[in-house]
Each structure stands twice: as C-alpha cells, then as structure tokens.
C-alpha cells in the first residue's frame, strides 16, 4: 500500500465518519502506529490549510473531522438547504458555563451561583445534547449530577475540557459553592 493511498484512506475515513474519528481508530483500521497516523494527518491538515481551501480538517472533541473554512460562512448561509442553529440564550449559556467549569455539578449548586431557578435552561441544554446526567451525588436526596458531553466540545470547537478558556481563580470556587449553599439553606 503506497503512501498516497494510506493518505487517501485516512482522508476517506475522516470524511465518512459522522463523529470525530479518533487517532486510535484510524491507526487500528490501517494497521499502522498511532504516531504514523498522526504524522499523515498533520500533513493532510496542513495541505487543506493552503490556498484558501473551502474545507479543512479540524481537531475537535478528541478526534478529527472535516468542516468548512469559517471565512466562507457568509456564502454558506445563503444555501437554500442549510441547517441553522440558534445561539444559546444568555440564561442557558450561564448555566452551561457553570456546568462546564465545575462539572459534575448539581442543579442546586448551579442555582446557588446564578441566583435563579435553572429548570428551563437545564432542559434546553439536555435537549440540545450539550449536557447529560452523570450519576448522583452522595448526600441527602442524592441529587443528579450534570456534566458536559462530546457534542458540547464540538459545539464550541474544543478538543477537550482543558481547552476551555481560562477563568481566573475559579479553581478555588468549589469551596465558594459550599459556602453559598450554606447561605441558601
């Protein structure tokens, strides 16, 4: 199997998958080392970056996937059959931000931080597949814990959670939640 053929197969695999394809899967299908697959992919990614191409290979949600060049978004929007996504409401976005940075987190913890009931934003986020239930917290009432999904990463173009934009000092906030919870109850 020649070089350009392996490259072609990788290109076909990335295209055919509806979900981002993981390096491990590509390497497994081709029977090559992961680092070889990575080199070939990097090469392919670079090639698509040249000459104002219309499509690109992006690294998202832990895998590789084809996507359009954002520079041409205005033209794509003019297509008759193009699915459009409404941006999240501010309320949903704030709820999502708390879940993203503090996961896994309970509804009561989110409400303590936002100061309002978050029932409808949690429903919206569950419906859009951006968050999911992730077990229950030990303690009274064993409340449901929420966490973000792979679609969340894809929606915001992140490869993994470590790529979330850094928020100052929020790491220490776990204790703040506790103290706010105590105020609330």
């Amino acid at each position, binding site marked *: 199997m020649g070089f350009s053929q392996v490259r072609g197969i990788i290109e076909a695999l990335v295209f055919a998958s509806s979900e981002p394809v993981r390096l491990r899967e590509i390497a497994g299908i081709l029977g090559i080392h992961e680092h070889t697959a990575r080199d070939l992919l990097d090469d392919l990614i670079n090639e698509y970056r040249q000459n104002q191409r219309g499509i690109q290979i992006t690294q998202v949600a832990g895998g590789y996937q084809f*996507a359009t060049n954002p520079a041409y978004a205005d033209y794509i929007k003019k297509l008759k059959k193009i699915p459009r996504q409404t941006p999240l409401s501010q309320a949903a976005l704030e709820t999502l*931000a708390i879940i*993203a940075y503090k996961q896994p987190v309970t509804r009561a913890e989110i409400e303590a931080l*936002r*100061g309002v*009931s978050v029932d409808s934003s949690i429903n919206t986020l569950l419906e859009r597949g951006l968050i999911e239930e992730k077990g229950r917290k030990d303690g009274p009432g064993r409340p449901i814990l929420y966490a973000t999904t792979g679609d969340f990463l894809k929606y915001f173009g992140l490869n993994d959670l470590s790529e979330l934009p850094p928020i100052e000092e929020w790491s220490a906030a776990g204790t703040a939640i506790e103290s706010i919870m105590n105020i609330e109850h």
Partner: protein
Amino acid sequence: MVLAKKQPVFARRLRGSSISGEEAGQPGYKVKLDVFEGPLDLLLYLIERAEIDIYDIPIAYITDEYLAYLRTIELLDLYCAGDFLVMASTLMQIKARMLLPRPPETLVEEGEEEEEDPRRELVERLLEYKKVKEAAAALREQEEKWSRVYYRTSGDFPDLEEDKPDDPLGGEVSLWDLIQAFRSILESFTPRLEVEGMPTEHESIQERMDAIIARLSQSPRVYFSTLFSGLTTKKSMITCFLAILELIRMQKIRVRQDRLFGEIEILRAE
C-alpha cells in the same frame, strides 16, 4: 471609557422571551421575558453602571436603585421571578444591619474578632456570579467563532431554523439599559390633566407596534426617546414601551447605543 469595554458582557438578549395571555392589546396582556438573568445580574449591572467598588457597596443607594428597577418592571406588568423579591429583602436586611451603631473600637478587646461586615456574603456571591458571566462570555465568543464552521450534514444538525439575526440587541444595549431609559422618560413626564368623561385614547400594543414600524419605514433609525414624544398618558407610554420590547422579541427592530449612557437608537432590522 473603562466601563464601555465591559458593556458587551452585560448585553442581554431578548431571545427566549414570549408572550402569554391574550392577543396583543387585549386586556390581561402580559409580556413574559425570560431575559432577566436574575437578581445578581441586576445588582452587578447597577454596580457597574454607577462605577461602584464592589468591595465597598453603598448599600442604601444600591437598594434604592434595585427597588426602583423592580417597581418599573412591576409597572410594566412584566413577569418577574420571586428570586428578585428575595434579594430585595436581603438588601433591606443588610441595609438595616449597616445602620446599627457599631461598638466603639476601644471597646473591642484585643484578640476578639472584629464584627463581620454584613455585606460580605453578598459580595462573595456577586464575585462568583461575575465569574459565571465571564465564563459565559468566553463561551459566547467561542460559540460565535464556531457557528461559522459547518460540519458535514449527517443528521447531527438540529432542525432547519428560520433565518434570523443572531443578536437583536446588537450586543450593546441590555434590557436593563432599556428599562433605565424608560424610567427616566417616565420620571420626566408630567401627566396632562385628563378631563373626566372625556374619552381617552386606548391604543393597543399592536397599533403602537404598527405605528413604530411605519415610522421606521420613513427614517431607518429613530431615537428611543422620540418614540414617546407626543404621548399624553402614562398608560400610553407603557403601551409604547411594551410595543418596543415586543418588536425586539420579534426581531423586527434592533436597538443600538453608540456609547455607554448615550442616546439609545431604534433601527429597522434587516
């Protein structure tokens, strides 16, 4: 201006708001806006607007401002969650505690802990909420960037949506700003004597909406305040404001403010 840069973070969107009750203009008409992000959001807005040090909040002033906003919302008959009232009572409690005479410092024995500032908990909550807003703003930026990227269509897109502008408020003017502007118009308004028995014009919200649209078809943009000129009753002014909110929600108009606290402009949506 320092605050001007922060403004987009506090931009509120009217998406997700909805009308409940009968048809516009009918009695019992209510506008339900889900855009109030909550009492913490309003407090932060007021603090930023007045350029107040968050660690040293003049609690009497901020309580008055907060209550004034709640009264305007109430006047407009907008739906407002009970959380706002809980916060109002919290503010008044803090205000009362602040008024209590503090023990003279000489009486505080050494080693004894100084009495806690009654505002401490509130400040902590506000600081935490500020970070929530920061995180949300960061995600919004990321969302906008990635909304320009299309993946291959394979059923993982949601349903086709109607083409609509992403941001009816233009990312600049928050709902709080609009209410503030409406408040000052109301405050400077001297009601004319309504002669008893004279039929008063009872314009519906729908009629007022049509009038605004007609006006915008003549000139592409008008000042928010001029939409109220010529109105003679408080009731008609409230109708006008609700009409503006409804047009924003329907994305028929856009609201813009060139600089912080500048004149608010109303534009026809493209």
